């Protein structure tokens, strides 16, 4: 016991020693690990993936759910679509995916699967923009690298997400560095969409108004300057865990937040884009111009009660844990249900099994409705197909096709969000209910001309 207490008291006093002078150019997490061994230990443990071990590739979602091939028909996701796993795998999993191997992809893909910061700066510099204009330099490099073919751009990056992506090297303070996020969040700030969970944006909007009225120049919203610490604990994740699209024709990566973060607002944005609307691809069976939703975790979380209550991604996915006398953020980013005591019980005074049961019951209701929606959508696809075969009139087909777009977007938004509804349970079910309605209305549209 004596020894114990002495140790603990010692620990309590201990800060970390700075063994290495960290700079922007030190990308290798192992170097950072010399100053911050505990965080580095956690970071490395993302290889011990939560559910799908260290196998060559995690389980295919297409095999688990055979309807998906029909639903995504014509999109690379119909060829290869897997479960996510730990951060350590992000670059490798992208490299080996059939989606990069069998389809031409742009450098844009690397924005979220690597540490491209240095490469962006370097390309900006080479394009003639000096270090005195860091923002322009970064954006230029981002544009150059992103619009290259994937294989060419791939040569300039080597690490999965690294410390430098989320931390300022000198102070280790949180920061956001991803160009698409920095641009996207500006546009969100400039929109009218209510964001009660992001107080610094609300504040900026007020000041923005004041500047406008006074005729002063209006500075853009800059999260690194303005966001609260609690907001930063979500923004670092929102650099990547978001819906995106590739601008046409150059395939530059864009986050579609100009009208807000809600699924309907994003759809609205896509519907108006380039005048006659944007689509990611044309469905191979129905010919409908569809949208592909990808991992809208940040957007979905934004609609939930936790976001409204100021609970950040890091609160659940990187909870503080006590190591001796010190509390550190768990850098083994993973499912919070693997450590409910630190991830949830700090706020919820219920037993672990009870909290798990609550999360699971939300997920089960959501997943049951996802299957129901998939069936409705598959039936719409079938109806549209047979309508086309039969030579239904173009107006009817157009109506049904529009219904396909609406239904698909809502289903995909929930299905490709990775919490199975947990991040915003009510919103997820609302979207699915609407998806069912659109899918079945489309079916009916095909049927009705001959029955009315």
């Amino acid at each position: 016991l004596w020894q114990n207490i002495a140790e603990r008291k010692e620990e309590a006093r201990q800060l970390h020693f700075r063994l290495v002078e960290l700079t922007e150019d030190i990308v290798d997490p192992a170097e950072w690990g010399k100053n911050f061994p505990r965080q580095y230990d956690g970071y490395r443990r993302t290889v011990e993936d939560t559910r799908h071990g260290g196998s060559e590739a995690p389980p295919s979602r297409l095999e688990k759910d055979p309807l998906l091939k029909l639903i995504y028909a014509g999109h690379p996701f119909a060829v290869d679509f897997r479960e996510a796993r730990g951060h350590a795998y992000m670059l490798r999993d992208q490299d080996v995916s059939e989606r990069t191997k069998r389809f031409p992809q742009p450098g844009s893909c690397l924005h979220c699967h690597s540490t491209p910061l240095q490469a962006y700066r370097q390309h900006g510099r080479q394009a003639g923009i000096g270090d005195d204009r860091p923002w322009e330099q970064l954006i230029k490099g981002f544009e150059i690298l992103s619009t290259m073919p994937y294989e060419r751009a791939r040569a300039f990056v080597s690490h999965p997400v690294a410390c430098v992506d989320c931390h300022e090297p000198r102070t280790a303070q949180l920061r956001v560095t991803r160009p698409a996020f920095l641009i996207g969040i500006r546009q969100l700030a400039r929109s009218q969409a209510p964001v009660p969970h992001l107080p610094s944006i609300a504040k900026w909007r007020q000041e923005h108004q004041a500047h406008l009225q006074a005729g002063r120049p209006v500075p853009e919203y800059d999260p690194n300057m303005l966001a609260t610490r609690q907001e930063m604990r979500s923004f670092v994740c929102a650099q990547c865990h978001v819906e995106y699209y590739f601008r046409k024709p150059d395939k530059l990566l864009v986050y579609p937040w100009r009208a807000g973060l809600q699924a309907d607002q994003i759809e609205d944005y896509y519907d108006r884009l380039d005048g006659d609307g944007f689509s990611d691809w044309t469905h191979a069976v129905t010919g409908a111009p569809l949208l592909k939703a990808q991992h809208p975790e940040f957007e979905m979380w934004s609609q939930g009660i936790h976001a409204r209550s100021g609970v950040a991604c890091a609160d659940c996915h990187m909870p503080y844990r006590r190591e001796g006398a010190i509390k550190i953020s768990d850098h083994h980013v993973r499912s919070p249900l693997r450590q409910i005591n630190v991830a949830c019980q700090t706020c919820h005074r219920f037993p672990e099994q009870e909290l798990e049961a609550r999360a699971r019951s939300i997920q089960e209701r959501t997943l049951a409705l996802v299957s129901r929606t998939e069936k409705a959508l598959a039936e719409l696809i079938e109806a549209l197909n047979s309508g086309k075969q039969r030579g239904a009139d173009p107006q009817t087909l157009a109506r049904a096709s529009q219904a396909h777009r609406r239904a698909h977007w809502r289903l995909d938004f929930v299905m490709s969000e990775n919490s199975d509804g947990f991040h915003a349970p009510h919103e997820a079910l609302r979207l699915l209910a609407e998806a069912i309605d659109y899918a079945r209305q489309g079916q009916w549209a095909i049927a009705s001309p001959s029955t009315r």
Partner: protein
Amino acid sequence: MANAPKILLFILVGLLTGISGYTFHFAEGFSYLTDDPRACVNCHVMRDQYESWQKASHHAVAVCNDCHVPQEPLARLGAKLRNGYAHSQAFTLMDFHEPIRIREVNRRIVNDNCVRCHSALVAEILPHKGAADPSWNCIQCHTASGHGPPR
């Protein structure tokens, strides 16, 4: 408060747990038996509760032991003994559940203390079967009274 019972208690605790007097002294075991809240925060694992107590509504009117220790002398002694033992063991083994959660027996003590101070106010709403009714619980609604809202 007289010092004699405390010393007696200290010896008892020492005997029970097999901890040497020196160890317990180092752990500021003496102060553990006083009513000074700083005694509790000698252990860093109590820091959260100490800090949250300071921010909560009662810090000006109640210290730790007002809520966490029974006020009847005999029960008080018993609780201190029991909790002293549990504390030493937990601290030595460092195998306790985190976040730390109050045990049912200790919650009951806290509850009795709420009623002790607020008996006039809550007279009408107390359990009809008296203390024998296990289902009544001030803390169910007033979670924040001792330590503020959860983080």
